[in-house]
């Protein structure tokens, strides 16, 4: 599927390029913007990013596959990231990982059939002092317990069913 940036997003990318003496560094921001617009980063997206910034598509591909936050497939509406690194692990990170895995019936980098949820086991997110933690999309949820996780997930489901009801 062909991909074109919206004019607004093109403007945002142009704004990003102004930070740097050359256009290339804006590739990282452009990819975020593309992911926001398209949901994930397809090969068409990479091509368009390359064109917009005047760099090669191979360069864009190399960048996309290097960084974990660029997704090459559509993730769920709620992308749940669970930290299991040491500080979280010591405070129950794996229990939460297993809890969410079971509850959603998903494994690492899997997406639910209805595209509502996806799950990722992530490396340290910098919340060691408020461990264990998860992040849902861009938001951190810290100082978690099994009960809190249950509450959060139920909350998400409730929001979803409310939206569908409307």
């Amino acid at each position, binding site marked *: 599927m062909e991909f074109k940036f919206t004019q607004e997003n093109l403007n945002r990318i142009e704004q990003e390029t102004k*930070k*740097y*003496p*050359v256009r*290339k*560094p*804006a*590739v*990282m*921001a452009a*990819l*975020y913007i593309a992911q926001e617009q398209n949901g994930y980063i397809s090969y068409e997206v990479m091509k368009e990013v390359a064109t917009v*910034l005047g*760099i090669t598509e191979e*360069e864009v591909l*190399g*960048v996309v596959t*290097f*960084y*974990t*936050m*660029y997704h090459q497939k559509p993730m769920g509406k709620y992308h749940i990231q669970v930290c*299991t*690194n*040491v*500080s979280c*692990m*010591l*405070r129950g990170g794996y229990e939460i990982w297993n809890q969410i895995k079971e509850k959603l019936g998903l494994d690492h980098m899997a997406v639910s059939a209805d595209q509502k949820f996806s799950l990722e086991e*992530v*490396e*340290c*997110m*910098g*919340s*060691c*002092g*408020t*461990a264990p933690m998860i*992040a849902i999309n*861009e*938001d*951190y949820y810290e100082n978690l317990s099994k009960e809190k996780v249950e509450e959060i997930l139920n909350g998400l489901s409730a929001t979803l069913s409310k939206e569908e009801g409307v």
Partner: protein
Amino acid sequence: MEKILLPDIKNLHLIDVYVSNGGYNAAKKAFTQTPDDIIDQVKKSGLRGRGGAAFLCGLKWSFMPKTTDKPKYLCINGDESEPGSFKDRQIFEFNPHQMIEGAIITCYAIGAKTAYVYIRGEYHKWIKLLQKAIDDAYANGFVGEKMKETFGTNFFCDIFIHKGAGAYICGEESSLMNSLEGKRGYPRVKPPFPAQNGLWGCPTTINNVETIANVPKIIEKGWEWFSNIGHPKHPGTLLFGVSGHVNKPGVYELPTGTLLTDIIYKYAGGVPNNKKVLCVIPGGTSMPPIRGDKLEGVRMDAESLKEVGSAIGTGGVIVMDEDTDLVKVLARIAHFYHHESCGQCTPCREGTGWLEKILKRIIAGKGSVSDLDLLITVANQIEGNTICALGEAAAWPVKFMVERFRDYFEQRVSKEISLPVANKVHSMRQTAVPLADVKN
């Protein structure tokens, strides 16, 4: 104790509050002095880098060429990805203007017109918080061209945030620069060093967020004041991030040289259920761990930790109680470095995976005593042979954990174990066993 970085002032993150508490006065003062004066004061203050290597900050600045046709750059490292580290986000959230003020003073000192703050992509919230602070600073004429008017100087500089996208290695300074240039975050071969050949081939200085945030106070209160705080060879305060098995995990700003036991028991509230401490990693997962029975008298600064065979790193203190499964912890750490190895150079690309696989095998009950030696050997074969310090970061926890908890690890493995051996094919040359005697 006076706090330098995170003082107890309400709403200090707001520009008005910051200014009404004397904010941006240090910058004003700095612009009445020469850049060399600033570098000199920072040198004399003894300020050392807070990003892990504890390199002398003023010395690093002095490496920047005085005469060059090229633009110079300042990079502020807020990648903060070392497991156990969560201090820079406190500065972004609670005292961003002090870092911004530090950035403009540093730019002035090293002659940079542009500063980039590289922040890990996961910190969406803190990127927004810092961006708001930067926008406010621009609006109030503390950053950008309007600085000239505000401070009555010919100098001005810009500050931009560059958002990372999920790669621990980008906290390594040369990798950070490649990432900032929009490339794969591959560390660069050194020399040349950033001061000669940094961003886009131009002279560049890279400092940690916390390091930069110290600068305004040094200028404001003088280098002597700063050098008298904490350990004389590593002065100032540190933002200790305490995590793991403590009652009150969090960030504590304390003078360098504070007793590790004080951090754990006095500030972080001790270990839950009064359990014994089995192991402490004092500076983020890549630093050599210390045994729980060797904590007495250990002081938290670069020099003191070196003496006990560890390092200050990012000051991220991870506490593990007596019930912790150290093999699992080590396997998790090994997994992290395996996951984060950029894959550029051989020892790290191949060695990190090997370490993880051995540890996973031990957890699966298929490890033997010889595997413990193998772990140390593999770690030693990575250490010192790589392009960047991720090699050491991956090797040290394995090597020192196994060495220092040898008794513990030996209990977890069998004396000997017979494994299907996949790769004994060319071992005959070394052992020179007659063919007829070769089994398997």
